[in-house]
């Protein structure tokens, strides 16, 4: 079972207390965007076998959305951070780079 730390209330919550919300840091396409941009925004998934940045909600706790960096192949969790960021914080990137030396560094 996954255990993730909610960056708002600091609780180590297990999977049943949380709701997964899919890929994080997706750039929203607005009016004037091309069909291709909309398709990418709405449907195209990175879906990596490896490091994944994703959204979770502390649904049975404080109710807030947050971000998690996690490995989909091993279920290793690199850390969680607040939702109000456009990209993963440096501390998380450094941690992943340390744990995954060959990591290409977030195609996001």
């Amino acid at each position, binding site marked *: 079972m996954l255990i993730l730390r909610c960056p708002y209330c600091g609780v180590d919550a297990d999977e049943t207390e949380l709701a997964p919300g899919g890929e994080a840091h997706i750039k929203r396409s607005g009016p004037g965007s091309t069909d291709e941009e909309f398709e*990418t925004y709405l*449907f*195209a*998934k990175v*879906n990596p*076998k490896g490091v994944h940045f994703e959204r979770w909600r502390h649904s049975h706790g404080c109710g807030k959305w947050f971000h998690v960096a996690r490995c989909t192949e*091993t279920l290793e969790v690199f850390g969680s951070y607040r939702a109000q960021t456009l990209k993963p914080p440096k501390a998380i990137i450094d941690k992943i780079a340390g744990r995954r030396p060959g990591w290409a560094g977030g195609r996001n």
Partner: protein
Amino acid sequence: MAIQFNRYSAMSLAREALRGHAGWKEAWRSPEPATSYDIVVVGAGGHGLATAYHLAKNYGIRNVAILEKGWLGGGNTGRNTTIIRSNYLQDDSAAIYEKSRLLYESLSQELNFNVMFSPRGVMMLAQTHHEVRGYIRTANANLNQGIRTEFISADKVKRLCPIISIDGPRYPVLGALWQPRGGTARHDAVAWGYARACSEMGLHIIEQCRVTAVNSSGGRVTGVETTRGPIGCSKLAVVVAGHSGELAEMAGFRLPIESVALQALVSEPVKPCLDVVVMANTVHGYISQSDKGELVIGGGADGFNNYTQRGSFQHVEETVRALVETFPIISRLRMLRQWGGIVDMTGDRSPIISKTPVENLFVNCGWGTGGFKAIPGSGWAMAELVANGEPGNLAAPFGLDRFREGRFIDESVAAGVAH
């Protein structure tokens, strides 16, 4: 001809019985990979094997290799709960799933391999008023599609399946969508049967051969790199279920797919007590009894991206809890095994059988939690697409372009999880 010699029959069984079963041949050959093929299929699950089979059978294309990173049938094909049905809501789905179900009816004869297709009947329980309305709608749609299904009363549910508790504590059974010719088949046998037939027609099945890169030149596919060396091809068919995103990345595009774990479990064997397949979608429980007597149980999928073929304990708990409500008789059964498979989920819960941005590279994926039932029909439709370079009627609605065009084939309205 070798095909005749290797035929399984009552005669060959008797002959082998008399000589201590010493004469059975391996069911498929394991050749060394050639330097190139007309067509390379990646993934020796049911869909990849059926694609290769129909390329040879329907189009006479035999210079074909099927590459498999592990062992044949070791992916979702060998991990599923084997429910076969075609009672889908949308016409496009009904067409391909019913084609598939019809092919299953005669698959053992076609492949000369007993796939143990057992059309014992599938019932999808309606346990909320919303489901009652939904299933009546589906039964009406199926009537128009020429698929025999029926909305049956709770009384009839109880008659067909006496161990069910109709009054259930949380969700009483209000009726069911009943498909009398739905059922199950032996999953391994489906993979093995296709593999044997492919091998007999001279196709190369190459196991322990992982594709690590896709080569292309001028936007057109030229071959693959593998753990057993480079292999060239004129056309490439990628049929790798949960690993489709990985292969797409190698080829330089993205798919509208996310990979998640779906799990199943089986109980200790007990005497026959359940001779239909029961699906309870509201509480996420799916159950049938195998010929060995085990109850085969499928549950809900994880909601997060996952490539570990494990599953998690709370889903087991959730599933078993739901089933005990509906089948109190099983409350003291012990569970024997549990496992997971990585399923490829699309947004509209419908598959993708499509051309891609790379010329001569085709994908067949997105079957998610419900593609075992589709293996024969999907292989048929995929072979047509790969052989002709254009989809036929069955595959045409399932192109990747539907996401850009907003032309979804929405099956998630019909059942949240669709085994």
